[in-house]
Structure formats: C-alpha cells, structure tokens
C-alpha cells in the first residue's frame, strides 16, 4: 500500500500492510522506514484526541481511520504546523479560557434527573481533538472566532442545572461567538464523537435571544425581528 504524507513536501511511503488503521501504518513507517516522520498519538482507541489529521482533505483520527492505497495524509488546517503532522493546539485550546468553559461556581444539593443528564451527554463526550477548528471556514478567516469545541463546551455548562450564572456565559459568547458561525455544519461532519457544534451554537443563539441579544447580522440585511433561516427564534 502506498501512502502519501505531507511533510515539507509530499513524500510517498510504501508499506506491506492491509486493513490497518492509519495510525498503525504511520507507526510502521516510523519504526521501520523513516524514524523522522513526526505525528502524535496516545490511546489508540479514539478517546484522547491526539492523532487528529486530515486524509484526502477530511479530518479523521488516525487510530480510527482504515488506511487505503493512495491516501494523502496532511496535518490539520488553521493551526501552526510544528512538524509534519503535528500542529500547535495551544491557540484552539485557549478559546476554552476565553469562552469560560467551566461551571461558574461549585454546586451543592442540585439534583439532576435522567432527562437533565441527557441534555449534555453527547457534548461532554468531546475529546478536544481539534478536527472542528481545522474544518471551520469561519475560523479560517477569523482567528478570533471562539470556534466549535469551545462553544459546544459553553453549551455543556449553560445547559446544566448546576450552572447558576448562565447569563454570564451567554454574555461571554456574543463577540466572535455564536453569531459569527455560518451554520455550514462542517464541524458536525468531521467530529469523531458525533457532536454537532452547529446545533449547539443554534441552541446558544436561542438562549442569547432569550437574554435579549439579537443577531448583529440582521441589521445589515435590513432585517430586525424576523427569524433568519438559521433556526434562531423570531419574536
């Protein structure tokens, strides 16, 4: 099987492996052919988020993608490439701080039902692999956009009964936040955990509207109190 890997230039490697994960193929290359090939990995079981990269233009976890002859493997987009398939995730991670993705204070004696728990069950499956930042066309042009995983994380806490100051969370995501998303759904398509940040952003928009915020884009379209086709509510 031939695999093409984007390093300084695209390099073709040939390995005698079939029906293996891309991570196994990369390990085979590194341990037997070219020890300088650089990539990250961890759990091998798609739960740590270390080995996110792109194959034929689409974000995948190397440990859960089965490599095919002729695949083109590239690093994630929209992040500084440190070397080969390793990118610097610090910037994407920093949006968690800016979006204040935590519970405002410790909660006591808040009882959650099974229904309460289901509200953010999927969102709390996020592994911070960064695939969504790579796929996001808004983040590609606006490096200040809070971005998909941090907004999903905000929804996780905002939707939780233990959060006592949801308003502050909503206030934090108005600039370079929920209204900047174009709802293109690219983040959903690449998420290895089946999370839809787009859907979470829509829910955050609804909460924002309830808190008295308006879509700032409406003004420029001459709109006002009409619902856009983006799912935000009209009133």
């Amino acid at each position: 099987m031939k695999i093409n890997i984007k390093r300084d230039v695209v390099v073709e490697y040939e390995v005698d492996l079939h029906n293996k994960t891309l991570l196994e193929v990369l390990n085979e290359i590194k341990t037997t052919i070219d020890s300088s090939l650089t990539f990250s990995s961890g759990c091998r079981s798609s739960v740590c988020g270390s080995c996110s990269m792109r194959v034929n233009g689409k974000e995948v976890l190397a440990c859960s993608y089965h490599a095919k002859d002729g695949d083109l493997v590239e690093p994630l987009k929209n992040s500084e490439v440190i070397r080969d398939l390793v990118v610097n995730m610090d910037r994407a991670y920093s949006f968690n701080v800016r979006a204040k993705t935590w519970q405002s204070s410790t909660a006591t004696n808040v009882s959650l039902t099974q229904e309460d728990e289901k509200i953010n069950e999927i969102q709390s499956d996020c592994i911070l692999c960064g695939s969504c930042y790579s796929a996001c066309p808004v983040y590609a042009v606006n490096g200040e956009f809070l971005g998909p995983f941090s907004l999903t994380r905000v929804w996780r806490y905002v939707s939780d009964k233990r959060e006592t100051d949801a308003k502050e969370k909503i206030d934090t995501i108005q600039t370079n936040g929920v209204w900047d998303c174009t709802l293109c759904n690219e983040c959903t398509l690449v998420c290895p955990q089946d999370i839809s940040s787009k859907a979470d952003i829509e829910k955050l928009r609804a909460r924002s509207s309830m808190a008295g915020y308006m879509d700032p884009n409406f003004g420029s379209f001459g709109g006002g109190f009409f619902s856009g086709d983006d799912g935000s509510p009209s009133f």
Partner: protein
Amino acid sequence: MMKNNIIVVGAGGAGLVAALNAHASGAQVIVITKEYPTRSQTCMAQGGINAALSNAGEDSVESHIQNTLKSAHGLADEDAVRFLCEAAPEAVEWLDSIGVPFSRTKDSKIAQRTLGGASAARACYAQDYTGLKILHTLYDRCLAAGIEILSERYLLECLTNKDKNSASYVCGVSVLNKRNGEIEVYKAASVILATGGYSRIFHKHSTNSVSSTGDGIASALRAGARLSDMEFVQFHPTALRSSSILISESARGAGGFLLNSKGERFTNELAPRDEVARAIDEEIAKGEDVFLDIRHLGAEFIDGELPQERKLAKLYENIDPVHELIPIKSVAHYSMGGIEVDKNSSTIVEGLYAAGECANHKVHGANRLGGNSLLELVVFGKQAGENAAKYAKGFNKELEFSEQKSSSEKLIQELKNLPNEINFYEKHDLLGEIFYKNVGIRRDALALKDALTEIKKLIEELPFMGVGDKSKECNTNLIEFIEFKNMLELSELTLISAICRDESRGAHFRADKPYEDNEKFRAHSIINRDGVVSYED
C-alpha cells in the same frame, strides 16, 4: 530562594486534582505535561469510580474497605485503605459539585454499577466514558482557577540538592521542550509527580496509552526515591484480541458472560481481575478462544450504558457486540507498584510528592479493584496537592543547580551521537513479547530469570541503539528513545522484584510456587537503584 511554588508533572486526573488543591491552598502552581491536558491515560478509564453511596442497593464504607483489602491479598495498608474508602463519598460529591456529568438513577441520584470483587453496585459512572468526563471537567476547573499548564514538555529529571545534613531535597525539574528541542529548567520548592504507570513495557500487550512509559517513576528513582511492589502489574481480563484495546469491566458487571470456543462459561465473571485473567489464560492455554458475550443485554441497554464498548468493538474488532461475540484476551493494564509514598503522599526525597498510578499508596496491594483507581487520583491527588503546598510555604532552602541544565543538555547530545546500529523500536517489540510471555499472568522462576538475562542484554545493547532523527525541533524519535530507556530501567527492577517474590499473591502468580507465603512475603517489596530488594510491612 523561591517560596511557595509547585511544579506538577502530569496532567491526568491525579495531576489536575493535585494542582487544584495546591492552588486552593495558596501555592503558585505550574502543571507540565508531555502531551496536552485531557490526553492522558485517565481519559481511557471507562467503568467508574467507587464510593459507598448506596444509590443502587445497600452498601457501606466498611464493605468497600473489606472488598479492597480482600482483593489486595494481605498487601494493602489497612489505614490507607480506610482513608481512601472513607473519603470516597466526599470525593464523588466534589466531582458532582464541579459539574461531572454522571449518569443518574430514576430517582435522580448518581447511578452506580457493580464491578468485579465488589459486594455492591458501588462504581459511579458516566456511561462508559467516566474517566473522560471526569478528566475534562477537572481540566475546565483548572482553567477556571487560572492554573498555568505547559503542554508538550517531556520530563527528564527531578532536580535535587543536599541540605547541611546531606539529606536530599527537590528543587525543580528539567524538561525537554518537545516543540523547540530546548532544555528548560523549572525551579520549585516542591514537585508533585503524577506521571502514570509503566504498563507500556508490555508494548502491544497493554491496554495503555503509548505514553504510559514510567518516566516519572524512573526519574524519581534517579532522584533518590524508593520504588515498591514493582512486581505487581494488573492484567485486565477483557481487551480486544487483535488490538489490546480495553473493554470495560462494566460489561461483565451488567451481566456479560465469558465463553470459550465451545460456548461454555468457565469462571465467575465478577471475581477480582487477577482470578478472571488467570481463568482466561488457562482456557487459552488449552487451545480455546475466549469471548465476551453481551448480546443478551440488548441494543437499548448497550447503547445507553456501554456506547463506547460497542463503538470500540466495531472499530477495532469489526464485530457488533449487539449481535456477535467479542474476541478477547487479558493484557497488562495497571501498575500497582510505583514510587513509594508515606501517608502524606511524600517520597523520602524532601519536597517530592507523588499521586495517581505512578505512586504506591499501598491501597491496591497485590491486585487493584476496578473503580478504585479513579478514586485514588481524586483522594490522593488532593492529599499530595495540599501537603506539597504546606511544605512549599515553609520552604527556605537554596535552589541552585546551574550544572543540572548542562548535564541534561549533555545527555541529549550523547543520545543523539549514539550510532543507531540497532533499531530500538524492534527491541521495544521484543521487550513487550518477553514480558507478555515470561512476566505476564503466569510466571515461574526459570522464565523470569530468562527474561532478566534478555533484558540485561538489551541494556548492554543500548550504546548501539540511538536515533535516526537528529533534528532539534519536535523530535519524537528522540523522546521515544528516552521513554524506551526508562522502560528498560523499570523492566529490570520489575523482574528482580518478581524473581525475589518466591510465592504467588494476587497479580503475581508463580506457577512454580502457587501459594501465598505469609511468613516471608506478606510485606511490600522495596527496590533501590542497584536492584537490591528488601521487604517492609
């Protein structure tokens, strides 16, 4: 002189809990990790965290204590176990208070399930993503507290000085910045190691992340700390046969069966892990294949409670456990042994603390109970953080170690200059095969001694190994070589400890001595850097 600052090495559960508690105690904290926070081994914990809450049937702290002691085969410190189990309800309550999305019961309590060796449904869980959800919530808490986390720094050494009475005290760490290849030295009044276990010695025969290479344990040893109970490595009964990826014990807790090729059950699926792993090993030795059967639990239950197990079985074994049997084997999973610490989580090196899997708090003894490792990282992470902060506050010694940076630089240069005539990756494969075969579920004196001869040969060959990649920036080849060196160092000590323990106890099963020898060996093994083993209560 720097007062009041603490370095935490490792950003898994234990490291983040330690950091939060040290911070809350007034210390200045920096967390250093060789990966990113949230990518540690903790995210792979699936089953749950033990606490006697009686949310799903009657339970008591005393039962938790007794189950833990029984599973430890006489090798746990009863006071430490009591401390752990008594602190458990509060630990879970704290996790709940910071937002961990635990699964719930119909009456709105934290849901609990039964794991092996437990007399009650005691493990609090969040589907089968318990570790992941706890870890990420802890990370968010650290962000809220403004704790500085430095990613992609690889620990080289714990730095020490000697005081007037020539006692060693810790004064910082040296790390390799993975990105730019520079050696960085961080001075600190206190250092907390939370660096995980060493099960990757078993390489492909381990459930662990590729990062579980024992770096912190090896560096603690070099800094003068003692290691204990190194011979005890737990094998998890159910890993996927072709990839060694973990399938949670909760699958058996919910009623899953273990079957052989004839479709017969052959053991009590909910016995402690050492017993189940041995039963599986015996079947495989007879030529049987072994399977986990959860088909009868039904799709709705599996998708609700065990979604990750279904995903992993599909992805890595190409079978759907709702309709098919899951082929499994037992592989290395957890290091019971590690850095010896006292009841304050302190090592014998002043100012050096340890928590989590890298540490030996003597609560697991010869065999850990499922659900007790997530618990230990909360309980002892807190203890380590608080005590390190207290120590750092009163710290008044010198932090001078100008030579140590240049010695780390020299080491890196020497490693790069090695001839690389022998491929160390091939030798890591070999190390894993030797350990799985000779130092695994079933051991005997001859096989252990053979393994030791092989390991010594590998150590002699080290000067002929090396790295092909000489670059400075982001040299993962170099870091993997240093990890391999750490594993070799710990392999030798594990083997010597296993040879000296001339009996069977828990996870250390000696086919040539298939009984417990309480007169001689109901004691913790301590091993020093020269490989000398002694036993202490």
